């Protein structure tokens, strides 16, 4: 069995190369293959397969909806003739009450309560009629629920439609009767065109929060009515074409999502762990380690929210408002109110609102976030010497429920009570509102009276911040944030994040200094030694 030496060598090398060749793929896993999607993507695709219409009713054929409607309330009654519990259910939800909850100190958190922001500040307990156009009732909150705001596929100005209909329907003029009939036909068509809420239904209010398109959130604006995949991988009409309620799943008209300080979810469960869980988190469908086995990104999900990497920038199509300085309002040009547009085609200055800054393609700011927000009310005491966090994330590095999360931070300068040290909420719209009178003292007095909170009459302006969690506008994976955007020494995205050691960003200055001193010292030492050998000619010649 004695083989030639070269044969033994060949065998040894063959075995060695084979073994070492098997080794890299074990560790090198992680480059996703196009025909072999990451496990999280496969899971999500299975969870969302085949979105087929499943309804057993065609609302256009229902006798209850084939009648003349003289006012909105009659449509609601027609809906309730079948959906008997819908109104009772809906009136329990924040979409009706505009109150999230009442906290232990009796403060009502919500638009209709004591909450405020640094945009239009407050609804003054819904006394500011300008704010209530978004409410889901006929005539604001006064009458019944307007089911069609969320469920009709036809966009209508309901107030105008019924006013016109009532004005023309009693007329003797056949032309006006004809117009009335046309309006009635439109009303009926809208009432018969029913379905689950579309992006347009939700967007009519949520894309335009803060008084205009894209003002508030930065990741929600009318560009999401018909987005492409580049803007949102889930909602893109050229892709999954998700509606809002695909993720904001609903139980008895309670729609999943964050409500003021209350988190959108209390535990991160996937559909595999609980098939009835809300689909509100990324983990619901993608799981908690969605990337390929061995991919470094899976190791990040204990500390970093999916959104932090997958939403590199918000406001990628339309601009969003980044700051609003109310203290600059009230300036007149030629004795008149005026407004000026900036480079993005949005108003940078308005006499009635003050100075505003808009931006597009904005990199989020990052903070530890466990899903809860600290939201302030008009009843909270502030420290005017510091920037007031009107709404800020709750979370900490050592909290296992917290993740590093992206935010749009809207910076404001807004009125506060110099004596009582609380934020103030002026009445803005209407004949007596600030937008008409430009009289701060009067508007603040009326606004605070509506809120039943005392106002000393002494007011000033204070800087404030308002955090919006950035969670929509999820970009395609090739646009995800790259490693070095965070793992870098200077000006990285995570520069402000503390409580976690990040390779590439962190280190100890003293250790680096000592280390390089040792290396350079050794180098200089051997150079001197070498020079010594050359000059003394001590090296023995070969």
């Amino acid at each position, binding site marked *: 069995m004695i083989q030639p030496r070269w044969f033994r060598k060949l065998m040894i090398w063959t075995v060695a190369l084979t073994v070492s060749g098997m080794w890299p793929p074990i560790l090198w896993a992680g480059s996703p293959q196009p025909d072999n999607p990451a496990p999280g993507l496969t899971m999500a695709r299975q969870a969302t397969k085949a979105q087929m219409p499943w309804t057993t009713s065609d609302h256009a054929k229902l006798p209850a909806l084939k009648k003349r409607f003289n006012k909105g309330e009659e449509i609601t009654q027609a809906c309730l003739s079948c959906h008997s519990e819908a109104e009772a259910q809906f009136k329990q939800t924040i979409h009706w009450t505009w109150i999230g909850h009442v906290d232990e100190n009796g403060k009502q958190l919500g638009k209709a309560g004591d909450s405020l922001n640094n945009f239009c500040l407050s609804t003054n307990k819904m006394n500011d009629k300008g704010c209530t156009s978004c409410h889901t009732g006929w005539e604001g909150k006064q009458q019944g629920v307007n089911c069609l705001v969320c469920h009709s596929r036809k966009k209508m100005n309901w107030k105008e439609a019924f006013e016109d209909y009532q004005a023309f329907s009693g007329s003797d003029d056949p032309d006006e009767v004809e117009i009335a009939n046309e309006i009635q036909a439109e009303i009926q068509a809208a009432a018969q065109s029913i379905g689950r809420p579309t992006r347009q239904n939700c967007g009519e209010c949520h894309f335009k929060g803060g008084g205009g398109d894209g003002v508030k959130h930065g990741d929600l604006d009318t560009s999401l009515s018909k987005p492409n995949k580049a803007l949102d991988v889930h909602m893109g009409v050229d892709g999954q074409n998700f509606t809002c309620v695909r993720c904001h799943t609903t139980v008895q008209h309670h729609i999943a999502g964050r409500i003021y300080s209350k988190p959108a979810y209390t535990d991160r469960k996937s559909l595999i762990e609980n098939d009835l869980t809300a689909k509100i988190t990324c983990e619901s469908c993608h799981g908690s380690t969605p990337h390929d086995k061995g991919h470094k990104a899976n190791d990040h999900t204990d500390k970093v929210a999916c959104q932090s990497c997958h939403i590199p920038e918000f406001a990628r199509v339309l601009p969003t408002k980044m700051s609003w300085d109310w203290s600059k309002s009230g300036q007149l040009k030629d004795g008149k109110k005026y407004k000026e547009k900036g480079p993005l085609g949005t108003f940078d200055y308005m006499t009635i609102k003050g100075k505003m800054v808009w931006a597009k393609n904005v990199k989020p700011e990052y903070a530890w976030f466990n899903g809860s927000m600290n939201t302030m009310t008009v009843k909270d005491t502030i420290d005017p010497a510091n920037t007031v966090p009107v709404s800020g994330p709750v979370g900490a590095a050592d909290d296992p429920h917290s993740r590093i999360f992206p935010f749009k931070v809207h910076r404001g300068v807004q009125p506060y009570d110099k004596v009582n040290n609380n934020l103030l909420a002026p009445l803005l719209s209407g004949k007596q509102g600030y937008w008409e009178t430009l009289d701060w003292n009067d508007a603040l007095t009326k606004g605070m009276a509506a809120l039943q909170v005392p106002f000393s009459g002494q007011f000033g302006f204070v800087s404030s911040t308002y955090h919006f969690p950035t969670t929509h506008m999820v970009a395609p994976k090739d646009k995800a944030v790259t490693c070095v955007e965070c793992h870098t020494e200077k000006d990285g995205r995570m520069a402000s994040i503390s409580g976690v050691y990040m390779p590439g960003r962190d280190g100890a200055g003293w250790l680096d200094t000592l280390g390089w001193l040792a*290396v350079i010292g050794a180098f200089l030492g051997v150079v001197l030694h070498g020079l010594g050998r050359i000059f003394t000619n001590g090296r023995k010649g070969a």
Partner: protein
Amino acid sequence: MLKNKIVIYLYSRYERFWHWLQSALIIILLLTGFEVHQGLSLLRFHSAVKVHNFVGLTWLIAFAFFVFWLFTTGEWKQYIPTTRKMFLVVRYYSYGIFRGEAHPVPKRKEAKHNPLQRLTYLALAAFLLPFQMLTGFLYWGYNAWPLWGIKSLSLETVALAHTFGAFAILTFLVVHLYMTTTGHSLFAHIKAMITGWEEVEEGETVEEWEVAHERKPSAL
């Protein structure tokens, strides 16, 4: 003063293979490690991390083979530290080498390392390199710490310890590279580490205490 030279076979095939494999692994680890840590940009962070992890784990496995070789061949005895002739060696490198003196402890098959080398390589093979592998492995396995029952360790501690080790190895490397030039010609030692054959001065006898162990000639 100069004596005749003889050529002896000093480094076996595996030793040479191991030396150059380990040096390649360490240099790649230093480069990618410093890219991950700060400053360097050769591969971009993402690839640097991947390469560093892969090469680091490879080193860990290869090192296990080295330890196996060390003990099965008895070569570990070459690393037993001693203070004998230590002064002579220190004196040689700080004085004698400039005067063209002969090395007080020339290499021999049975005693490859002079007392200074024994101490250095023992510190390296028994402490610094395992320390670097251990801290590196912990660093790599950070997400599994809860699974491994590690609770009271911070990533920062491990990362800084690993950085410390890297600087120590880099410092060694600088001196080590220089020391290769101190043979009878600039590249004599490097050549020996490639071919296995080292030219040494004739006539020096190896003292009993220096001998690592008896070796049968057939082992070659």
